[in-house]
């Protein structure tokens, strides 16, 4: 059933959390649009995959949602980062940076640097 690899799913969750952290309350399309804008064409993900992920994050208590009115006065479901989600984002950011730093350093090492 899972067509997307796990890494991508995990990354996508992190992107959603970060987007909500930066933009505050946002509806599904807004989140999708924001991720698309930032990542450009590099990330070819169907926007629809976002919704099961949003439900999962909500089940985990990282985000909460409620109905509200959009900018052009339409009914839309708005998502918001919870306190637990903020904590999770901080932790995952730290983890991500650490992993990235290690990988970067790994790539930068040249043969002559080794003792």
């Amino acid at each position: 059933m899972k067509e997307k690899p796990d890494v991508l799913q995990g990354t996508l969750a992190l992107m959603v959390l970060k987007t909500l952290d930066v933009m505050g309350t946002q509806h599904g399309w807004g989140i999708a649009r924001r991720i698309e804008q930032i990542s450009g064409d590099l990330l070819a993900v169907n926007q629809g995959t976002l919704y099961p992920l949003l439900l999962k994050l909500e089940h985990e208590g990282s985000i909460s949602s409620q109905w509200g009115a959009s900018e052009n006065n339409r009914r839309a479901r708005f998502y918001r980062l919870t306190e637990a989600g903020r904590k999770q984002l901080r932790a995952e950011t730290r983890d991500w940076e650490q992993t990235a730093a290690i990988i970067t350093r790994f790539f930068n090492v040249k043969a002559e640097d080794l003792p």
Partner: protein
Amino acid sequence: MRFLRRFLIRLSNFVTRRSTDQRLREEIAEHLAFQTEENLRTGMSPAEARRQARLKLGAAEAIREDHHAEQSLPFVENLFQDLRFAVRMLLRSPGFSLIVIATMALGVGATTAIYSVIDATLLHPLPYPHPSELVRIEANLPGVGSHDVGISIPELRDLQNSGIFQYVSLCFHGSENVTGSAQPTHIAGATVSPSYLAVLGVDAALGRTFDPHDATPGSNGEVIISDGLWKRAFGADPHILGKSLRLDNDLFQIVGVMPASFRDQGQTSEERGTELWAADGFYGDPSSPPMRGTRSPYETIARLQPSLSPEAAQRHLDALVASWKKQYPAYYPPQAAWTIHLTPLAETLVGNVRQSLILLSGAVGLVLLISCVNVANLLLARASARGHEIAVRQALGAARMRLIRQHLTESLLLFVLGGITGFAVLFCARKFLLQFVPESLPRLNDISISWGVLAFAIVVSVAAGTIFGLAPAWLTSRLDLTTKLRQEGRGSNGSRRRSRLRHVLVIGELALSLVLMVAAGLLLRSFWDLFKVQLGFNPTRVMAIETTLPNPNDPNTDIYHTATQESVFLREALRRIRTLPGVEETAVSDRAALPLGHGQSDLRQRPMIREGQDAQSSQPPLINTSIVSPEYFHVLGMTLIRGRLFVDQDLEDTPSIAVINQAAAHTYWPNQDPVGKRFIVRSRAAKPGWTTIVGVIADARTESLADAGIPQVYFDIYQRPDKFLAFYLRGQVDPSAILAQVRTQIQSVDAELPVFRAETLDDVLSSSLSVRRFSMEMVALFAGTALLLAGLGIYGTISFLVHEQSREIAIRLALGAQRRNILRMVLRQGLTLAGAGVGVGLVGALIVSHLMASLLYGVSPYDLSTFAGVTAVLTAVAIAASYVPALRAMRLDPITTLHSE
């Protein structure tokens, strides 16, 4: 934490069946609207804008499915769906379901029943704390071929101080006369070291146990009673502690009552039913101070230090024994090769029954296997019948894993229902079934149908269901779609593979039942041979009734101390018993002479010093001794071969004489005439000086049915008195009334004597065979079941073959084939299967019969007639089972068959 929260929400959604599908629809509609607006802004046409928005979103249905999967627990949901479907399938073919459930109930029920017996005997034989620390200590003299000769008091003290054991205790299971109440009673009582209950690690329920460090030389006057005796004899008196109890004219003080659940350790059911424990130092007045060389013939049990394994303890002990031999060379002559051996107590209790129980569990395992195979066969047959349904499902897009899962759910449901049914039947019938378990089966625990047994039943059925449900599920899902759909029922590739598996299963079933039947046949033959064995004595119409004379601690108060004193009582009691209606002959003996009786623990072998051959110090051979009245040999129908038997003129003051059996003559006086030879066997009541052999009798199987050649020496009871007596009555007596009649007669001589346990020797004989009979009957029952199942299996397979080949048969018939040839063709298929099954089974049976050789008596493990008979029976059943479908094939109407295809 987060995972748990997510799981709980999903679970609650699943249970409340809440769905957020509506919310998702609205969100998606909204999403599309936003995206369409955005697309319009970039200048697309409205239609194109909507199309692009949809493309960007992806497949809406797939999203909904993912969303739903996240919403709830899809695995559980599918499981419920499968279960619902499985229940529906089960109800749709109730006959099939019933057969499968009944077969499994049989297999699991039988396995569980045997498991519950094994759990209480082999797995948890000792109901005491830390049972692995308990050991039995045996002193052996392998140099002179003597075993379990007992240890002396100084040796006991050395063992106690060796640091190897927490406690060491001697014990002697006997019986006690409780007098002083209206009716003297006789109970199983044990004389034990004060540390005995500390060894077992059980505390009193009321009062206290003995002080394990008490070093009083003789009896310390304290007794502990069982819960049963407390309730029966004292009406559960709460103020029982400190009260006195009169045992054989001596007063004892009750210091404790054991818990109701406590059962003593012991090899016989009487020992395990001990109701009274008296503390004793096992030496002292009137005997001389304890000597290292004076070994008491008592059982020794001990509790190891918790840090020591039995192997390590044995090593320490070997070192200790070596140091004793150096320190006291006079007591341990090198030629005797004195050793001390530790055996886990659990092993000594289960003893020779272990093999029977292992055999039973093996047999029941085979029955379970056969029922599983039978069910797997049925499942396969039904899978073929449902081929079309499965093909359609597959064509509609059902994934293979999903189909396997669904099939597995169905078979698991059937297996588990079968297992639960089997357990339920077992639980309801437990009282009835427990009657068949022989009393002599060593068990201190009650056999109970507990939670552990239920868990066992469920685990067995789930495991069986998984293993035997997987193969049919796997094969069923492996269909060639197009052929199956195009030509239903004409034997596609898949079905050929399946029928091959079915053949293998049937052959396996036949082979397994052959193994079981051979085992049952051999056991039956052994049992029959034992039953029909030449006893050497005649038990018919002989009844034994026991009494015990008082054995007070002070010999001066003993009114039956000398042979002359006792003979007055014996002659008067015998005379009175002979006057009872129907009694023709009477005799009396000590309990050791009771054929195949309970006397085994009273009867200890004693060293025999032969004149001119053995010296006191050189560890003489041990021999079984019996003490009998002159009429004993005649009442039991034992034949004199040489010399004479005892006569009334042999008395305490005439020379001491003995009768031996042929085995003793051959073993100890080979190639000589034993009559006139002299020897000494010491005992409490023996006169000093030599005993002369006056006669030799033919060997009789009074010790063991299986062994005729056990050396025996008989003494005259009027020369060598004994306290533990058995009276024999030959004649036409009423077994229900005789005990009371004999009691009246004996108590009119001495009112203080208890009279108990009236048994016919035929009963004694049959109960001595009880464990053998039990395992024989069980294995025979299992073999019968196996035969029935195998018959059903071959019937099912041949029926199925006929059904599959009905088109071919119809064509043959239409082309003019003889109906007889059709019959022969089908029967040949059945016979081929039977032949293969018998071939495989014979190999298995040879292996199994070799393994069970020690359980057999008088029949070779490769007994040709048993093997041939069993093969014939199995083949006959296979032919009979194939005959019905063969007849059906013969009577096939070609026209209707060909039209229906």
